């Protein structure tokens, strides 16, 4: 299949693995930022191929995993309202809130619908003028442009029955927070290729310079991840800390400026709480004043919800690369995809789910 098979070619993979073995002389701890990369690594068994001196730790780049509990509880409240059609990406439906989840709300009569694009939610609002259609706008820089577009379009059309519950987060502030933590082990980043497609590689220059870590914008296929690792390990072995671009077929240094413009039109940068990690300054997006009418939280006067996350599972440590999923005592016993303790076990991009699904075992 075009644009897939080329990047899964066993011979190319073998060549890259051999190269990685040749150039790796020291031990390195490397974080792949995006859950999509974690998924590819575990699915294709990349950890089984690479030198044992390279430790891959899995980053916080799973939008479902880091959406704060308070937002989830708000989503659950909205979804249960009889006047609301609550729309969301599929992954969010099984993430546990304080007392329920969206799938349960649906089984109790809430009108919860999976959409593949926020623009489908806008279309639904057009079709159901007597209902309030709310879209759960979660995700990183990757989903922000289409979510911004949906709000933009709703405003342009004067749709008064469409709104978004916003929980957007930004990757570079999280990468910075991880490096700044006293217990940081990460020595190099494979940056999330799709985030870089939108935002470019420039936002990473100050991070690489300040913390002296190499960063390689990397794609999601086996050859992408392996080539990204080769580029990163070369830098580490040579003592360089540059920003490089492995995913050149998709990423430009300046990113997709049109998409950035639409995001800036609609959203502004704000502080954001990350589930499992905590508050990170200037790490999220909120609607600008001109679009505040489309904010579901204020339209439905949800206010502040007091939520408490009992300290049961350790997905925060997993999200920060401090703990491998199988080292969590609950992994695979108390905590399974069927009965997840934490979001990292729910989302297909969560590290725990990937380890569980593909049966990754300690080396």
């Amino acid at each position, binding site marked *: *299949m075009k644009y897939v098979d080329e990047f899964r070619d066993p011979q190319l993979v073998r060549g890259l693995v051999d190269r990685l073995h040749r150039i790796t002389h020291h031990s390195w701890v490397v974080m792949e930022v995006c859950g999509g990369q974690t998924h590819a690594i575990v699915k294709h068994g990349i950890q089984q*191929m690479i030198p044992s001196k390279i430790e891959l730790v899995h980053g916080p780049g799973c939008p479902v995993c880091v959406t704060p509990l308070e937002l989830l509880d708000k989503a659950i409240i909205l979804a249960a309202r009889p006047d609301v059609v609550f729309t969301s990406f599929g992954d969010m439906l099984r993430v*546990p809130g304080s007392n329920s*989840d969206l*799938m349960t709300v649906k089984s109790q009569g809430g009108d919860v619908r999976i959409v593949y694009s926020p623009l489908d939610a806008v279309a639904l609002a057009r079709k159901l003028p007597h209902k309030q259609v709310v879209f759960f706008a979660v995700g990183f820089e990757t989903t922000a442009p289409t979510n911004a577009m949906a709000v933009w379009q709703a405003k342009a059309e004067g749709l008064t029955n469409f709104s978004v519950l916003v929980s957007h987060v930004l990757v570079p502030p999280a990468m910075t927070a991880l490096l700044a933590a006293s217990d940081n082990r990460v020595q190099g980043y494979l940056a999330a290729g799709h985030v870089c497609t939108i935002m470019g590689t420039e936002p990473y220059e100050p991070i690489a310079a300040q913390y002296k870590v190499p960063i390689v914008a990397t794609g999601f296929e086996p050859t992408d991840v392996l080539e990204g690792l080769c580029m990163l390990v070369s830098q580490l072995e040579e003592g360089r800390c540059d920003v490089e671009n492995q995913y050149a077929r998709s990423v430009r240094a300046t990113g997709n400026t049109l998409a950035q413009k639409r995001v800036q039109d609609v959203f502004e940068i704000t502080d954001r709480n990350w589930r*499992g990690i905590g508050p990170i300054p200037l790490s999220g997006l909120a609607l600008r004043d001109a679009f505040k009418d489309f904010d579901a939280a204020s339209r439905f006067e949800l206010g502040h919800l007091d939520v408490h996350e009992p300290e049961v599972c350790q997905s925060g440590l997993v999200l920060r690369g401090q703990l491998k999923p199988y080292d969590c005592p609950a992994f695979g016993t108390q905590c399974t995809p069927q009965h997840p303790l934490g979001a990292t076990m729910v989302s297909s991009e969560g590290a725990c789910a990937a380890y569980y699904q593909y049966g990754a075992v300690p080396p």
Partner: protein
Amino acid sequence: MKFVCPVPRLKYDQVQMVHGAGGMAMGQLIDDMFLAAFDNPLLRCRDDAAVLPNQWAVSTDCFVVDPIFFPGGNIGTLAIYGTVNDVAVSGATPRYVTAGFILEEGFSMVDLRVIVASMREAADDAGVQIVAGDTKVVPRGKADKIYINTTGLGILQGPALSVHRIRPGDLLIVSGTLGDHGIAVMSQREGLSFETDVTSDCAALFDLVQLAVDQGKGAVHACRDATRGGLVAVLHEFAQASHTFIQLHEAQIPIRESVRGACEMLGIDAMNVANEGKLVLAIAPEGADAVLRAWQSHPLGRQSAIIGEIHDEGVGVVINTRFGTQRVLDLPVGEPLPRIC
């Protein structure tokens, strides 16, 4: 910074969609609710069809597919093929079918006529007669257009095929490309619609089963049609019932390019996607070549392939990737949910 996570919710107080999706949650519902209440030796076998003492095999199935019309068929086609296939995989010759209809007030008579005509056509194709039926109409909004239940009866000539006959050393053969039906239906779903040239593979599989039994002689041990839950669900049934370990070879698994494309886009695995015209066979090695050749020369089995084998150490399903690595193929909780990005 605090590193925390929410408390588990360990049981379901309500029925949820996952309970009907062919995954782990449905298995648990069947075990804890239905098997617990109805327990008897025939039911406990957990084969697609129960073999009654007089060599009749019986199977029943409800059809609630949405949308009711999709590329390659409709709910009526499925209602016949789905049930006769469940009878056929026991090795029995399907003979009779009953049909129960739950119709929503206001449902189009034109659509109903098309569906019924498709059922007649499928029944003729499968060599069965529809011999009893029932009709109920419910108020508008209490059902979604039309639901159909069919029960199939077939007669066994020889010993029944059963998952309990699977042995270490058996090879696994699949009768063609995987995921066609599920992708064809998903492509038409509201909110998920995308363009594809994939059509449903729904077909009567009795001929293929008989070919296997004839050509494989006694070597054919178990046969399933890989419907809801796809190939992976069938293999887990095989592994659990026979307490064996299944090893697959990724490079040998036939998947149509357009299905792979759609699955890549949706972030799901074709091996978990439903089929309505594909068999999975567990067969002792000495019979495998003859069955493979026979299937490959049949119109419904042209892309048949040997995809793996059964081992005795452990229980579960593992796949060897194209890169020489291995991964577990876990049974999904429920229907695959399209991912965010």
